[in-house]
């Protein structure tokens, strides 16, 4: 309701036109969003006059959730601050986790090495050079027992970034809980379990796509039925974005992948409101602050509508786009690496203005190595300073109502929706991935951005502009890989193989194979196998016989 003495839209429009002419605004150099849309010199009430506030924006914690998934957001609790950590053996990682927990890290976010993510044992010939490098090595339940030594599972929440062998890690977590005397219903945490993103980017796939989707659905079904505090999928835009996807491709493809998981779970007989509230996302955040904030506002609105209108969700909890945000490592640069602290801080702000639920924040040495204790501490401090010193938590969605951000939110929502429609038209995510469509779009975008950086049309301070005397750079200390890791890991694996009941292992693997062939949920068989100390490689090899191996459509 407008007061009589306030200016009308017509008056604003006239004033704006006159201002453009008088102040020569038409000759101001153009600017564009990340998506290539022109950005106006100034936004006014005219840009949001068509938006119905209650329908499109509304109140925090209420449909369509544009302003936030919870009513009072950070007034009640700040976002969860975690660092993604794991390296070497279980002992090494257990020590780092304890260091981080003592400094206020909420829960643990586990990084696995590449052999573990590919479901290979540490003694596999393909694993030799990779054991314990980019994360920790897990071969058997014995590793998990050491990893959580002194960390009772009823008092810690864990997040596992693993996809192809996700079901095996879940089985180990359940088995470990049982060993610690913690009931399965009390286990809390998140499993990424997003195998589709691996076919699109990062390549940690093993099985063919269709059986892999079935396996992911086994996890969803098991958690829905038996683990009320566990999130069985954390759908990962970040891998797509880091491979080069634009901010809308990341959101659009990720939603399309999520739709595939939902359809698969519905086909399994689960109700949308039984598992809808357990869907969460993991997105990469760039440092174009306003566009990122607008994108998350748009994503919340769009996801709520998808869940409500497309899938008929009734429970508002099922409609929430809950996300972990992380500044993408690709935002960081190797030149003058201290600058990454500053880039990271802006990214943290973008996440907060976007209404993030949790953050994993990359350390400044991300372009070179996994973090040292020092850089890991700084990454956590970056979040804590933003939360407790800047005042950013005082009010919900402070950018709501900004003429610019609301206009951007609308524009970005439409772009994401267009991408989802394209994937729907191709027969859904699995089909689009098998055709290499998402992969091609992402490679095109990565190339476009790389050329812009090379040509200097995209400015990166200290890299392609304002390059100072780089010889004065401070020499950095990096995390050094401990060459004893492989030996220590193999020693444990061999000891487990010697001391376990090998007949029980083969029996459990036989049952696993049968369950996989029969198409029943394989989680119970997996739990039995890991309790007998069957290794991840043995389990994956058994499943490969049933599920086949993916053939990559090579796209450049």
């Amino acid at each position, binding site marked *: 309701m407008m007061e009589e003495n306030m200016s009308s839209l017509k008056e604003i429009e006239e004033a704006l036109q006159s201002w453009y002419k008088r102040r020569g605004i038409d000759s101001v150099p153009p600017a564009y969003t990340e998506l290539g849309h022109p950005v106006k010199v100034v936004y006014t009430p005219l840009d949001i006059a068509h938006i119905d506030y209650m329908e499109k924006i509304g109140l925090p914690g209420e449909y369509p959730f544009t302003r936030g998934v919870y009513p009072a957001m950070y007034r009640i609790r700040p976002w969860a601050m975690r660092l993604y950590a794991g390296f070497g053996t279980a002992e090494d990682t257990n020590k780092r986790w304890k260091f981080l927990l003592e400094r206020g890290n909420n829960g643990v976010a586990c990084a696995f090495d*590449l*052999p573990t*993510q*590919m479901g*290979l044992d540490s003694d596999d010939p*393909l*694993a*030799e*050079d*990779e054991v314990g*490098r*980019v994360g920790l090595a897990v071969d058997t339940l014995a590793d998990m027992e050491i990893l959580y030594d002194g960390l009772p599972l009823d008092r810690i929440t864990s997040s596992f970034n693993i996809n192809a062998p996700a079901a095996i890690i879940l089985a180990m977590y359940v088995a470990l809980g049982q060993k610690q005397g913690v009931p399965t219903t009390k286990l809390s945490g998140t499993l990424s379990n997003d195998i589709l993103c*691996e076919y699109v*980017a*990062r*390549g*940690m796939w093993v099985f063919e796509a269709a059986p892999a989707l079935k396996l992911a659905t086994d996890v969803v079904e098991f958690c829905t039925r038996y683990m009320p505090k566990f999130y069985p999928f954390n759908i990962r835009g970040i891998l797509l974005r*880091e*491979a*080069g996807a634009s901010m809308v491709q990341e959101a659009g493809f990720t939603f399309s992948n999520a739709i595939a998981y939902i359809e698969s779970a519905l086909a399994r007989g689960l109700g949308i409101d039984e598992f809808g509230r357990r869907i969460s996302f993991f997105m990469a955040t760039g440092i174009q602050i306003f566009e990122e904030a607008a994108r998350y506002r748009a994503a919340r609105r769009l996801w709520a509508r998808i869940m409500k209108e497309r899938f008929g969700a009734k429970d508002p909890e099922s409609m929430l786009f809950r996300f972990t945000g992380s500044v993408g490592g*690709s935002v960081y*640069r*190797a*030149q003058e690496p201290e600058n990454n602290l500053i880039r990271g801080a802006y990214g943290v702000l973008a996440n907060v203005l976007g209404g993030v639920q949790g953050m994993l924040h990359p350390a400044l040495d991300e*372009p*070179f*190595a996994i973090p040292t204790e020092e850089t890991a501490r700084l990454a956590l401090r970056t979040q804590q300073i933003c939360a407790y010193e800047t005042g950013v938590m005082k009010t919900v969605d402070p950018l709501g109502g900004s003429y610019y951000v609301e206009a951007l939110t609308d524009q970005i929502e439409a772009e994401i929706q267009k991408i989802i429609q394209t994937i729907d038209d191709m027969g859904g995510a699995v089909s689009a991935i098998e055709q290499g469509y998402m992969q091609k779009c992402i*490679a095109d975008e*990565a*190339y476009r951005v*790389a050329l812009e*950086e*090379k040509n200097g049309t995209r400015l990166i301070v200290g*890299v392609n502009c304002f390059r100072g005397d780089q010889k004065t750079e401070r020499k950095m200390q*990096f995390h050094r*890989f401990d060459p004893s890791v492989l030996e220590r890991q193999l020693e444990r694996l061999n000891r487990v193989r010697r001391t376990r009941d090998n007949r029980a292992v083969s029996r459990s693997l036989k049952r696993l194979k049968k369950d996989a062939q029969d198409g029943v949920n394989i989680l119970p068989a997996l739990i039995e196998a890991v309790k007998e100390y069957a290794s991840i490689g043995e389990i994956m090899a058994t499943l490969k016989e049933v599920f086949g191996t993916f053939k*990559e459509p*090579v*796209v*450049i």
Partner: protein
Amino acid sequence: MGRKIRVLMAKAGLDGHDRGAKVIARLFRDAGMEVIYTGLHQTPDQIVRTAIQEDVDVIALSILSGAHIGICRKIMQGLREANVTDKLVIVGGTILEEDISVLKEMGIAQVFPPGSPLDAGIKFVQERLGDVTNRQEKGVSGDGF
């Protein structure tokens, strides 16, 4: 006309981060070279075999997992065992400064650590292998499409 410079762009080991490999592959292609991209998860043995079968001039390796020393050593050894000495082997990725000399000692022609300019690899290959005329002197034939 001589044939184009042939480049094998290879993702070695388990690392699946192929953004850089794909961008560099396109840059090589746009610079007029012929690029064969292996796809992910190639073993050293597979890379050596592909390089021989495809008769490439350059093997460009992309390794972001930190496993470069072990993988490069196996590839260089595989090439030696196959009596292949005419390939220019270059590697880019998450490689710390102190590893560069180790890699060069095993016969890696050039290393591109984080922060290398995007076209550094292309410039290096062009400088080393020269233009089409030089290549004809080497007696290399091809269809030159």
